[in-house]
């Protein structure tokens, strides 16, 4: 079973996203900001991360840069999942090492489509 870390400061959104992912046979874990996500990744690296942009303590983009800068171990697939829906933000995220980008609001079909895009769903 693939393991997904959902990083978002909205508890409701984390729950909704986790429900969709569990329906798609992913094991899920949650983090409420980039700093918490980074320490969870250091303990156990997930297969995929769904990542919000604006969060207290450490933003999504700061987290991603830190994660991609970690020299050791395998790197997870990272999908940004944010209300920032303009080309500048998308380009910045891809430049920092994001694999895909989900613009909120999303639904199950979009999550499925994006996971399939990165090869985690057939």
């Amino acid at each position: 079973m693939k393991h997904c870390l959902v990083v978002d400061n909205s508890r409701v959104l984390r729950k909704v996203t986790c429900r969709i992912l569990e329906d798609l046979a992913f094991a899920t874990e949650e983090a409420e900001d980039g700093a918490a996500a980074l320490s969870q990744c250091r303990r156990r690296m997930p297969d995929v991360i769904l990542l919000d942009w604006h969060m207290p303590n450490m933003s999504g983009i700061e987290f991603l840069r830190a994660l991609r800068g970690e020299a050791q171990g395998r790197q997870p697939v990272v999908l940004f999942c944010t209300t920032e829906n303009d080309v500048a933000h998308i380009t910045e995220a891809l430049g920092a090492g994001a694999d895909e980008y989900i613009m909120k609001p999303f639904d199950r079909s979009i999550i499925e489509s994006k996971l399939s895009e990165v090869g985690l769903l057939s």
Partner: protein
Amino acid sequence: MILADFKFLAEVLRRRSGLVLPQHKSHLAENRLLPVVRRFGFKDVPALIAELRHGHEALAEAVTEAMTTNDSAFFRDRKTFEEFRDIVLPELLMLRAATKRLRLWCAACAAGQEAYSLAMLLDEAKLAAQGWSIELIASDINSQMVGRAQEGLYSQFEVQRGLPIRKLVANFTQEGTHWRIRKELRDMVSFRIFNLLDSPHWLGELDVVFCRNVLMYFDQKTRRQVLKSIARVLKPDGSLLVGPMESLASLTEDFVPFEHAPGLYFRPRPPLPLLRRAMR
């Protein structure tokens, strides 16, 4: 909806578009007719059907359009596009090396996602720079859908189903909450309103036909008729792509399946070199 009204509606739909409306979809049909009821100022669906019985042409057209299924997505059934790119296209480039001309048809294009997905693939292959002339024709029975396809403007929801983010950034410009496909790709596709029951002679000779997830809405007789039409316009060494779950078995002898790629059909002929290699 009373049974007599449903039967009349189903017959109008079958005659005009070939679409089969099974009785268990009566409720769905009523829901789809409600916008037409409002647009034409009828009291309710029975009043609309009563007027339809008087042969009101504009109403019949609006009803037919309302009943067509227009759900689509960019790169829907991604594997089909990979097969087109990796199997069909390389062979065609070899076969047409002398003329450097390719003609493709999307037979039921809905809001244009399939045609523009193909345009993106062909654009990535940089064929124009190598002197190729590509003609991409896309048609649909629904005039509103053809209008939308020509606009090339999609909601944030639509561009997130099937379209990789890098392709979105490379090929679309943002307009508020919507995204418009770039002009060079819009210019690659000619859209046209066309009923698959009509004669396709205007298409001329084609190298590839995409007719995906369409035949399943027709009865057997109409499926055969549409396949005959496609066979008439497809070159003897051309390819037909239907939906991966659609089978043409027992429907036609004009096409044979390529067993290594569900949904890909050829005219009966000996396999060509690239295909022989792909089959190994």
